């Protein structure tokens, strides 16, 4: 075969995905990276009275990491209940953001599917309430086809259901000692890439730092620090 024939063959294989390309992963301090080309679900810990309480700060901070780390150049927010207050967003995320307001749940799934299957490395943050197993599988396949990452915010009561997402997390606000610390407890419920991690149900305390960055501390360490502070106060 000629050299040009070799090159043509290689291009065909690349285009068809026959040559494996490793999808990038986003390291965000927990030791469990968020893989691109996959969907990741986030369950809120809201009380029934308040209804849905999507973890916008955590999702926005992850989007900021993806944009600043040049892993993603666009952020798509899908579902009007999930739209963050633009003044809260990092300026680079703000400039890269597009807000979609599909009128129905079906349109929301379609728009999420389309955004995830885009060849542009897009961070897709979508309202994932009420998704069926088939819908989560559809979105997971769309993400595998595309170059982006899917972050699906779901209702707290749905965490017991089945899903095709690669990782599943629960986010609950927690009290910390700092005078103005905004903090959450983030728990890994499931990780298909490393199932044994999920069995241990790992948990972290995540604080919102300056400039939309997250400060992540394992819960064990955070609780130990709280206990020590309490003992000092008591003595």
């Amino acid at each position, binding site marked *: 075969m000629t050299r040009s024939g070799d090159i043509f063959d290689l291009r065909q294989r690349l285009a068809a995905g026959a040559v494996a390309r490793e999808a990038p992963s986003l390291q965000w301090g927990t030791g469990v990276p968020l893989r691109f080309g996959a969907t990741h679900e986030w369950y809120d810990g809201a*009380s029934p009275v308040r209804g849905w309480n999507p973890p916008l700060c955590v999702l926005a901070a992850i989007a900021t990491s993806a944009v600043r780390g040049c892993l993603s*150049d666009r952020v798509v927010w899908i579902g009007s209940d999930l*739209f963050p207050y633009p003044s809260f967003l990092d300026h680079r995320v703000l400039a890269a953001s597009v807000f979609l307001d599909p009128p129905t749940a079906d349109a929301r799934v379609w728009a999420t599917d389309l955004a995830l299957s885009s060849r*542009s490395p897009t961070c897709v943050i979508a309202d994932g309430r009420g998704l069926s197993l088939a819908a989560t599988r559809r979105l997971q396949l769309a993400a595998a086809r595309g170059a982006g990452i899917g972050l699906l915010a779901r209702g707290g009561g749905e965490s017991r259901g089945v899903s095709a997402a690669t990782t599943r997390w629960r986010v609950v606000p927690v009290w910390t000692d700092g005078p103005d610390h905004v903090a959450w407890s983030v728990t890994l419920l499931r990780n298909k890439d490393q199932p044994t991690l999920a069995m241990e149900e790992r948990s972290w305390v995540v604080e919102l730092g300056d400039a939309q960055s997250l400060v992540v501390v394992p819960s064990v360490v955070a609780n130990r620090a709280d206990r020590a502070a309490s003992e000092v106060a008591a003595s």
Partner: protein
Amino acid sequence: MNLSQARVLLAGRELHVEDEDAVGQAAFLLALARWAARRWSPVVSVDGTDGLLLDISGCEHVFGDEARHLGAIERGVRGVGLTARLGVAGTVGAAWAAARFGGSRARLIAPGAERDALAPMPTAALRIDSDAIESLAEVGIDRVGQLLGVPRHTLPARYGADLVRRLDQALGHLPEALERTAEAPVSVVSRELPGGTTHLASVETAVRMLLDEIGGVLGRQESGLGGLEVVFDRLGAGPVRLDVQVSRATRDAAHLWSLLRPKVERLHMGFGVERITLRAGGVVRVPHLQATMAGERDSGLRHDAAFAAMLDTLASRLGRDRVLRPELVSSYRPERSCRLVPVDEKGRAVGAATAPPSVLRPSRLFYPPLAAEVVALSPDGPVLQVRCRREEHRIQSCLGPERIGPEWWREREPVRDYFRVRDDRGRWLWLFVEADTRRWFVHGEWN
């Protein structure tokens, strides 16, 4: 009137039949626009196949006043052997209507008088499509004045959102900018379907061939289009126009077809489509892309193109008012300091100068603010307890106040004192109290 009808009317007489030269006409109109831009207004836009739009704001004093300006345009056009119908108004829509339907009386509409001037005109004066005109005529609405009497909230569901948009644009309730297209090259391609056809597959094939053709024309010019107008000339019925807007200039026929296809499938073909014309608008230079060894993933330009194509598809299906981008606005009030605009709308200057550090603003803002019952140590805080939406919050931390007043021209609005408070479960809320009424509201939260 089509050729067959003309032959019947002129039965027995000798006819000279000549094919319409759509390309030549478009080129002439463009030349006319450039000529007008050198004489009467720097901002001239080609309007469809038979009109020009001139933004004469600030130009009238050169000629004395608007009436004299209009007279100068009329004399100039007559001087080159053309007959023009002219209209002047404070809005594009009203001027368009005045030129086509105003006659000699209503060709100059004073600012604020659009409603009265448009009232006696036919509904076609609103630049709405023929389907909407027919639907209105079915219920006896032939004049704009009759339409203005119909409750506004009933119009979108019955006649489409475009009717309300056109009405608002004509009356000046919605802005409408002129796109300066006079200097841009215009590409038009056309295909005859002899005898007309109602066969959808044939129409689709013809449109796809025309898209390939116009893509080739644009490719040779290293250009891409920002909008596409497709005109279907129907036998025994008026033409139907379909518009497609793209967020980023393109000449990709497959992408344009994906946007056009749903509209073509819904096309009412009447007794048959006998001609299809594609007109490219907003033509700008789009350079060729170098092919890369590792496929399309490695090129930023290709990423942009892929993302723009996705946005076009979303806007085509969901509507452009549901595909939005955030924009900061210069305002102290949190609810006015940002807005969402259609992603293809040209942006204004960002009011970053007044934007505070983002960590001091909540991740979610409530529109409108939620009324709350608050227990505080003193009328100005600190806050001890908040009750909002039937939920009690025992407050452990209270930071503030941060005073936010209205802009000086909105002096009637109350000054607000904002507090960031944290309840015993670690949840942060953004509260404010109005300085004059002492009413408390929850305006946002960090969630």
